[in-house]
Structure formats: C-alpha cells, structure tokens
C-alpha cells in the first residue's frame, strides 16, 4: 500500500477541518491516549507529538490505494469498474424465522454472524447497535453471541464509529473477529490490515462484511427532516430506503420522504465517497436488486465465498443467483453514486499530478493516449 506520513495535526487539517471525516472510528481505535470524539468528529484535548501517527495512517480519507488493496485481498484487480472485484452475485435470505422477523430485509448479515459465532470461527463481531439511551443513535458494539447480533440487527441511517468496536475487541484479547461496516469502515479496516507501519493485530479480523451505502445522514439534520413531517425520532420503529423513498415507520404507519429531499441531511463527508457496494469487503450485502425479504449478496474474496458456502451448507442461509435485472439495479445505483460524487471529488481535488504534470481531471482524456 502506498503510504503518506502524517500525524494528528495533518489529519485535522486535511480531513477533519476539510469536512472529509466519515466518522469511522479508525483514528481513535488504537489511540486511546489522545483521540476522543465530539459532534461526530475526532478531537484531541492534548497535543500528540508522534511524527507518524496511526490515526493518519488508518484514516480512509488521507490516502487509499484501491488496486493495492484488491491485489492484497482478492489476488487480482477488478474487471468491473462499477461494483469492484467479485466472484458472484446472489440473492439470499436467512433461514431462521427469528432472524427474518428482526432483520431489515433478508437477514443475511445476522445469519452470517450467527453462523460464525456459533461455529466458533469468530469469538466477537464489531457491529453498530442503536444506543439504549438515545433513540436511533448507533454505537459501536462488540457482539459475542447470537442474541447480541439479533439485538443489533437492522439498518441505521446515521454514522457509527464501528472501528472503535474493532479496537475494543482486539485490545480486549479477542482472537478472531468479524466486522460489519459501511464502505468507509471497510476501507479503513483494509488500511489497518495492510499498514506497512503499524501492526495492531488486525489480522484477527477474519471476516469483513460490507453494507451497500448511498450516504448516511447527520443526526441533527435527520431529526429536523423528521420534524417537517411531524415525526419525533424516538417514535420511529423502522427506517428503510426503497424505490427512491426514505420510509419511516411510526406506530405501524408508514410515512415517506423522497430521497432527493433528504440530500440536505446527508453528512458532508459522504459527498466524496466513491464506493456504493463496499467494494473491498469479503462479502457485500444490501437490498437493492432483490425481492422483498431477500438480500443482494456480492461474494468477493475466497474467504467470503467460503463463508457463504458454509452458511448455506449448515442451514443458516438460502441463496439463488441474482437475476440480470437485479444486478443491473445494483449497478444503476452504484453508478449514480459514483457519478454524483465524482463531481464533488474533482471539485475538491483540484488538479491531478502525474509526476510533473498538473492536469484538470476532466481534461485528462485530452492528454492521455488510448
């Protein structure tokens, strides 16, 4: 992996103050001395004098080399520039009725984690769980049983520093872990695993399950949007996104806001994200493309393929190949995110430097040969 060096001051100037922080928790996961989080951002009360900090090294927004990660994790680079590297795309659902009842869609993530925990392949999973004290505020949580996993089931639509859970589990001596995260969490996890400078024991994370993600919402902005339709977040039973609508279930009644009207509530850092389908995970899971009550599953790595195969064999999952129509639906959404956000990336990135040549990204094709 290409490595730049920086410390907490560089991280603050290049990421936090530039509104690029995705609040994944990677910077503070292994720095309990200086970094804390306030208002969904890392902050420091005291000065750290490390010249080369793990905080800068692990942050998915300081630098990220997609093809280096693909070579390291998948053994080769992608052929599909929309969905990234993958082996197969399936539609799947949990077989356990209890999981089906609690799940957001098909319960695939819950079923995979249940299989991994119950078979002893992992002893913990870092996930996001809604805080008991604060409605819909996700918190990092280390699940060690099926009950824990069930308690954390269901999608959350605001950001959670899940990597702090990975840090907690590793520092607590857990031997084998799974991570469930959004594309930003997955990128951070891969950076931690492939870091040439720091070894935090991240090879203990043996299963990385990614979730499809268009964006996450800023908690305060989300509350404001809900207030516009007379909904208090503490009354919400379920959130979902289907067919261009943000669906809110309140006391059994479903309300909706067009997703285009929710863009104002989007976290600023999500506007520069170029990954919809958690492209660097072992297995990516979402709902788009599949029937109601099923999940779309993109199997990417050898480990991911083995995990899905075993979960099917042991009766945790049922799978079918995803239809061409379903795959196209995933591609459409991924393309939309990439196209919209590439404009923001280009606007923020300025000119590209190719050795000594400084080139506007949109004019690059005028310069390079076919």
């Amino acid at each position, binding site marked *: 992996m290409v490595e730049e060096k920086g410390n907490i001051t560089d991280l603050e100037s290049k990421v936090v103050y530039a509104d690029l922080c995705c609040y994944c928790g990677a910077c503070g996961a*292994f*720095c*309990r*001395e*200086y970094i804390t989080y306030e208002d969904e951002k890392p902050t420091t009360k005291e000065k*750290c004098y*490390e010249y080369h*900090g*793990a*905080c800068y090294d692990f942050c998915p927004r300081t630098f990220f080399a997609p093809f280096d990660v693909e070579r390291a994790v998948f053994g080769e680079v992608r052929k599909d520039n929309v969905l990234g590297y993958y082996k197969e795309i399936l539609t799947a659902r949990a077989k356990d009725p209890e999981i089906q009842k609690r799940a957001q869609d098909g319960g695939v993530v819950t079923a995979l984690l249940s299989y991994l925990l119950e078979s002893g392949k992992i002893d913990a999973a870092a996930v996001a769980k809604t805080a008991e004290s604060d409605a819909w505020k996700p918190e990092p949580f280390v699940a060690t049983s099926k009950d824990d996993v069930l308690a954390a089931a269901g999608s959350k639509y605001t950001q959670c520093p899940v990597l702090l859970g990975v840090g907690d589990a590793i520092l607590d001596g857990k031997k084998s872990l799974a991570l469930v995260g959004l594309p930003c969490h997955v990128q951070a996890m891969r950076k931690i695993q492939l*870091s*040439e*400078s*720091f*070894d*935090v024991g991240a090879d203990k994370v043996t299963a990385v399950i990614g979730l499809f993600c268009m964006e996450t919402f800023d908690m305060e902005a989300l509350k404001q949007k809900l207030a516009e339709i007379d909904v208090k977040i503490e009354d919400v039973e379920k959130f979902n996104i289907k067919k261009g609508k943000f669906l809110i279930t309140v006391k059994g009644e479903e309300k909706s806001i067009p997703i285009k009207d929710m863009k104002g509530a989007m976290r600023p850092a999500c506007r520069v994200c170029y990954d919809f389908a958690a492209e660097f995970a072992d297995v990516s899971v979402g709902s788009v493309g599949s029937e109601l009550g099923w999940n779309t599953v993109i199997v990417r790595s050898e480990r991911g393929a083995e995990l899905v195969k075993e979960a099917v064999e042991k009766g945790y999952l049922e799978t079918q190949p995803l239809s061409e129509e379903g795959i196209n639906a995933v591609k459409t959404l991924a393309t939309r995110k990439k196209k919209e956000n590439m404009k923001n990336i280009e606007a923020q990135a300025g000119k590209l430097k190719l050795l000594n040549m400084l080139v506007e990204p949109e004019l690059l094709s005028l310069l390079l040969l076919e």
Partner: protein
Amino acid sequence: MHGAVGSGDVKKRIMKLLANEAQPMTISEIAKKVGVSWATAKTHVLELSQANLLKVKKFGRNWIVWKEFEKRERRTCSVFKR
C-alpha cells in the same frame, strides 16, 4: 483567622496550589496564596516534604518549593509500530 483553617486543609490547599503552578514557589508566595502565616506555611511545607509529596530547596534566605509532575507513561500508537 488562620486558626480557623484545619492543618489538613492547609496541606491540601498547598498541594493543590503547587499542582497548578508551572514554576517553583517561595514560602512567602505560598503563605499569601493559601492565606496562612509564613511560619505556618513553612511548617506544612516541610512536613509535606518529609512525606515526599513536595520538593524543597533553600537558596540563601529563601525556601523554594515545587511539586514534581506525575510521570505517566503515554501509550501512543508508537507501541504498535512494526
């Protein structure tokens, strides 16, 4: 007035004062800030010094008093360096 302050209380106030001071202080400065006489301050400072809670050194006619900063090992990310 000084008699109203318990001796344990004075010691605590001296310790707190020195913990917040970046530089060493003289007995006079301590006495003034804590609100006790020079002799009382000196007595308490010497007692605290005997208990190894403060450092004291005599320079000419002045007693210089300071509290050593607690040395706590910082666990930075350098412990994870390859």
